[in-house]
């Protein structure tokens, strides 16, 4: 992989990688660390991809795996930087944005991540399942339960 190719891949997908990592960690520092780890893996794996969808899917899968591993690690759990969500440089332009975003971020991780991948990134349930290494049925179940929790949290239906 040349420097130019890396730069292209970074500018194309770092935002998605960062946002997925942010949905796991809920803070900017850990999300940026994860971006660096994922791209380090890309460099060392020296991958070549058949098309753009394969490129992005690989990066998202690696991100999800590494985020999950990190959250499970004893070191992270003992020494994690618990930055409050409001300190994470988030910008809310309306009260609705604040309410919905915070409600999603307060979901348990397994619901929050599928909602992010399905609704924000636009992946199908099958594609989401492949990224998270779970069955499509599990994705559907988690989307269903996540939506119900959002409805309960916001006190009304969320238009999806």
């Amino acid at each position, binding site marked *: *992989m040349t*420097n130019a190719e*890396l*730069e292209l891949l*970074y500018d194309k997908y*770092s*935002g998605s990688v*960062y*946002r997925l990592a*942010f*949905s796991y960690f809920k803070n*900017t520092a850990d*999300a*940026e*660390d994860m*971006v*660096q*780890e994922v*791209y*380090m893996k890309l*460099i*060392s794996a020296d991958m070549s991809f058949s098309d753009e969808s394969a490129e992005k899917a690989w990066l998202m899968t690696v991100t999800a795996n*590494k985020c999950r*591993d*990190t959250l*499970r*690690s*004893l*070191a*992270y*759990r*003992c020494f994690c930087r618990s930055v409050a969500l409001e300190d994470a440089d*988030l*910008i809310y*332009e*309306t009260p*609705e*944005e*604040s*309410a*919905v*975003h915070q409600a*999603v971020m307060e979901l348990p991780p*397994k619901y929050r991540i599928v*909602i*992010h991948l399905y*609704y*924000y990134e636009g992946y199908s349930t099958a594609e989401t399942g492949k990224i998270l290494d*779970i*069955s*499509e*049925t*599990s994705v559907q*179940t988690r989307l269903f339960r996540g939506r119900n929790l959002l409805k309960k949290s*916001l006190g*009304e*239906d*969320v*238009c*999806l």
Partner: protein
Amino acid sequence: MNINDYKKVTDRLSPSAECRNEVLNMKKKQKKNIKLSRKGIAVIIAAAVTACGGTAVYAAEKLGAFDRMNKTLEETIVLSDGTELEKDKFAELDYNQIAQTAQTFTKPISFEGEDISITIESVYCDGYTVILGLTGSLKNGNPEGYEYIPFRPVIKLNDKVYSDDFNISKGVLMAKGKLYLDEGTENSFAGQFQFTFDEKNKIAEPVDITFTLKEFIPNSEIYGSVYKDMPTLKDEFSVCFNVAPDESLTRRINHTFTDSEGYSVTIFDITPVAMLEQCFSSAEEIAERNPYIKNQSDSKVFAVYTDGNGKELEVIGMHHPLYREDGTLASFRQPPTSDIINIKYYDAYHPDENGEPAFIHEMTIDLENLAVIE
């Protein structure tokens, strides 16, 4: 409310320019190991996990069986009669930690029987506790839709044989083995079998373990309900392998914390799986060497432990209290996630005005400084 509100906020999130420079510089400088691994505890190999009579190289990869158990245990488990069991009944142990710290066989030990295939993929061993990670599937499919298959193996450690649930007098406690149906699958199971030793009998050196599975436990033995019969096991499954304890998993405290009113707690060892401890409620009871365990019917005082991160450290049901050399009982609790532990004592025989066990005393201990925080 609209999910687009979530999208709008998320669209505004992006990594910093500094992050971009770091990544692009990685390639330019050919640096491959800039960031420290976040994996925390490295999987430390105390000794190669070998098959008896042979050798196999240890593989430091994440374990399938325990990871799959952790996913399964996130949901409720539905037995064949429709009874739902809450995950808390089974998730006393932290399978995240077990997955991180167990040892994998590079050549998993498999058994292909007439009615079931079982593989022992991995083993966790800290000396006190041995947990085998297993996967399996029923050879003729799973038309009955079983989600939970318990079993009771016979274990032989070197020359000692254990075949019952309770061997407390022998210094060993064996829990039932369990296989759970993977979420979203029809016939893919992952599970574990564990046994726990007391201090006198804990594994200190590599040991040969023979694992023999003769039968599944009929459902009628479980929780008093009658279910459809479990599949019978036509073949006997017996394998032998050598396991070494990973001493690095044990944090040795071995300290008695006593406050000014004579309440005390002794913390012995802490592993990723459990904390071995004893708790005494007063100077008189210390003299009587009488430990109190929550929910024990003949106890009058029990203690609730909470760590500095707010996690309640429950007594682990599958790790029944074990006798120490002095004849007293020590309990296994969930391990703390911080060095600060708060212990609240309650009197079950003298409830408060709300009918709840009366709060009688509190102490806080610091494991790092081995001190009572008054």
